[in-house]
């Protein structure tokens, strides 16, 4: 447990001392989302209809960018071998890496989401639920993404491959997150969708640490 906490503290400290990475990802989030009004036209009604989808999809792609280096950086400098050989269970250490990734990437993205949603004219009823879906859904996103990151350690064409692995796995999260916000905007209860979204994240929590550990073990053999 101490090892996991130490790992989280190390990764958060590293991110804190090199803030350019998260700044780049946040800039990507804002710039990519602001392309849509040019692509589909600036009519406020159309933007209001698609705003939540754009926020979620672009946040997803931004999160992918940080996942690419999640385990690859450790593999490059050799510390991955130490993690695999540590006395603490690798499942727990992999989970710690994901917690740190979530704290350093997802939390800033969640904080920036209202700005992007405002740019896209999201109806005011949607804001609270959008934040809830991001808080409930991004842990699942990071966990499924962690599986992809662990699997593609040492692979050629890592980035595109990571997207190909992770995007099909996270489709359910996207579906229920957008459905929850749409329900709230339409004046219906978003609760069933939020429960399913939370359920997906919990399911990812039960599956991802074992899949990540299996992938990392065979990556360092």
């Amino acid at each position, binding site marked *: 447990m101490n090892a996991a906490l130490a790992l989280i503290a190390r990764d958060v400290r590293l991110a804190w001392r090199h803030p350019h990475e998260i700044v780049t990802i946040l800039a990507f989030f804002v710039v990519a989302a602001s392309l849509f009004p040019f692509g589909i036209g600036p009519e406020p009604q159309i933007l209001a209809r698609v705003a939540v989808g754009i926020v979620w999809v672009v946040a997803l792609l931004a999160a992918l960018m940080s996942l690419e280096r999640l385990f690859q950086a450790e593999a490059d400098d050799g510390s991955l071998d130490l993690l695999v050989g540590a006395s603490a269970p690798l499942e727990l250490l992999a989970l710690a890496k994901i917690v740190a990734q979530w704290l350093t990437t997802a939390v800033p993205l969640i904080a920036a989401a209202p700005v992007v949603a405002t740019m896209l004219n999201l109806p005011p009823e949607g804001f609270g639920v959008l934040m809830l879906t991001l808080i409930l859904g991004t842990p699942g996103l990071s966990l499924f993404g962690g*599986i992809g990151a662990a699997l*593609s350690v040492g692979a050629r064409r890592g980035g595109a*491959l990571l997207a190909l692995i992770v995007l*099909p796995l996270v489709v359910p999260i996207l579906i229920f997150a957008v459905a929850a916000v749409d329900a709230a905007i339409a004046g219906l209860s978003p609760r069933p969708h939020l429960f399913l979204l939370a359920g997906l994240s919990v399911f990812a929590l039960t599956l991802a640490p074992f899949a990540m550990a299996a*992938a990392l073990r*065979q990556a360092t053999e």
Partner: protein
Amino acid sequence: MNWHRYASPAAFKRFAVRVQPWTAGGALACLGAGLYMALFASPADYQQGESVRIMYVHVPAAWMAMFVYANLALAAAASLVWRHPLADAAGRAIAPIGAAFTLLCLATGSLWGKPMWGTWWVWDARLTSVLILFFVYLAYMALNAAFDDPTRGSRASAVLALVGAVNLPIVKFSVDWWNTLHQPASLTRLDAPAIHSSMLWPLLAMALGYTLLFAYLALIRIRAELIERRLAVLTHAKFAAEPAR
């Protein structure tokens, strides 16, 4: 019966050579009879007209898409548990076949959807989950080929195949869990199948023909994989033995 006997590549090769012609002949016979019955001998549907004949190609393809993925997941589990080269070769060999069946299912479904539903594609749960199945096949093949060391690719993609197996029950039960445009199952119900025997027989013949075709292609491709691996080892040994000039 001791199944591990067949796990040695040499024993598998003897088995494959013996079984292969039977699967080829059976597939030809079943597909020939099935296609004749489906395209000529079976009646047109009272509602769908002649378009119903697409169903005889589409439905077995959908079954195969899932059946091959189940095989892929089993091969992946065997590859991770016993680390056997035959399981690696099997996974690598059958994934493209499964992807082809999935693509056939999506394409024929789209061709049927245009006259029947008035659209090539709808984003309902069944269609979307099958599309994701296709993407998982693609990701499996990409990951398998992404490493310089083929064993590494096999192990990594095996983990992915097991994670992706979560999608199988979603594909199967999507028509029951959600209110979809796609019709629910008519064959695998507890009471009698809701399909007349004049349409059931060609469907079953096609399904058996597809399964035998899959067996035939899988046997050939697994043998080819084993030979290719052997060739790589021999080439490597040859160059390692020669002094550098």
